[in-house]
């Protein structure tokens, strides 16, 4: 009994944050496509509307997988070879937000410009 109540308490700790979760993810409008080709992003610079949730469609046309990452936009997501993923960013204040591909950092560099 005691073990159960300790576990319940630990679970309650984790679930107490659940009060802040939305019922459904916020849906963004049309996605903006970024292609990965030869370990480079095309286009390398993408303009998005500021102060809005935006969906980036990362289309990996290489056979290798990539990890789409941005410290400034606080996103990190893996896309397999010849696969696509949707990455939601924002709302972003106007500015320049670099992103990179962690698996090919030397060449996979880009930026999102919010304006």
């Amino acid at each position: 009994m005691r073990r159960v109540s300790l576990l319940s308490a630990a679970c309650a700790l984790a679930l107490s944050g659940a009060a802040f979760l939305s019922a459904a993810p916020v849906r963004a409008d049309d996605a903006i496509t970024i292609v990965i080709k030869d370990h480079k992003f095309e286009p390398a610079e993408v303009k998005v509307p500021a102060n809005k949730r935006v969906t980036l469609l990362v289309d990996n046309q290489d056979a290798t997988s990539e990890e789409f990452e941005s410290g400034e936009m606080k996103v990190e997501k893996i896309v397999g070879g010849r696969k696509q993923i949707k990455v939601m960013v924002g709302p972003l204040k106007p500015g320049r937000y670099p992103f990179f591909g962690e698996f090919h950092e030397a060449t996979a560099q880009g930026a999102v410009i919010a304006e």
Partner: protein
Amino acid sequence: MLASLIIVFREVLEAGLIVGIVLAATQGVVGRGRWIALGIVGGIIGSCIIAAFADGISSLFADTGQEMFNATVLLIAVVMLAWHNAWMAQHGRELARDMKAVGHAVRSGEKSLAALAIVIGVAVLREGSEIVLFLTGILASEEGGIATVAAGGLGGVALGALVSVLLYAGLVQIPTRHLFATTTWLLTLLAAGMAATAVNFLAQGGMLNAGGTVLWDSSGILRDNSLIGQALHVLVGYTDRPTEAQLIAYVGVVAGILLLTRWAAGKPPSDRSRVASAAE
């Protein structure tokens, strides 16, 4: 090959540091090697399965499957760590006294080892699936033959394991009377860091829309994807651009675990120990 080695090394390090802390935290506990090995093996098998279904998982929940999966397994690990610390607070004195006695204390110690095995399993699962996806991607392309992939992969694993062993070796230099408190704190901060990371995945996936303001940017001082920054990220949850929600989760988990352990320590000992001590 060097680039692959470095990437694999960094992923292995993230899981390896956790294994090192758990090994130090369970120093002297009977059967811990078995449970830790189980966690690692389970994590490796799980990571191959996750990597195989990565595409499918990604498109779940309106393409937020990856975020949901990461947040969920991280929160499971947070609960396991909280429970382990609370359990140790409740039974720690018994265990220390009855360390040599086979039976109730040791057997129920297995439950706390199981919790840590799950924590290790989660860490190995998360990093392992990234490694598998990375390496199979190289194999699928023309860029590297089996030899290159094997060399980079094995080299990265070996180097990551080495650094983790160094962490463990360093931790067990701590005098025994301080080791328990030190590892309890390390496990607490580990849980807090995982909670903050989970919160970021929830925000990324659009499940959490509150508290998104970035509080400060310390990437000028220490970037969280540098080697030291990454180690600190795992060990104490360092992130160079924490959001409000992440800070609240971090502080909340530390406070929550402190309260939970205080409450658990105040609970009376189990029936059998009471009978045993009455019979003495």
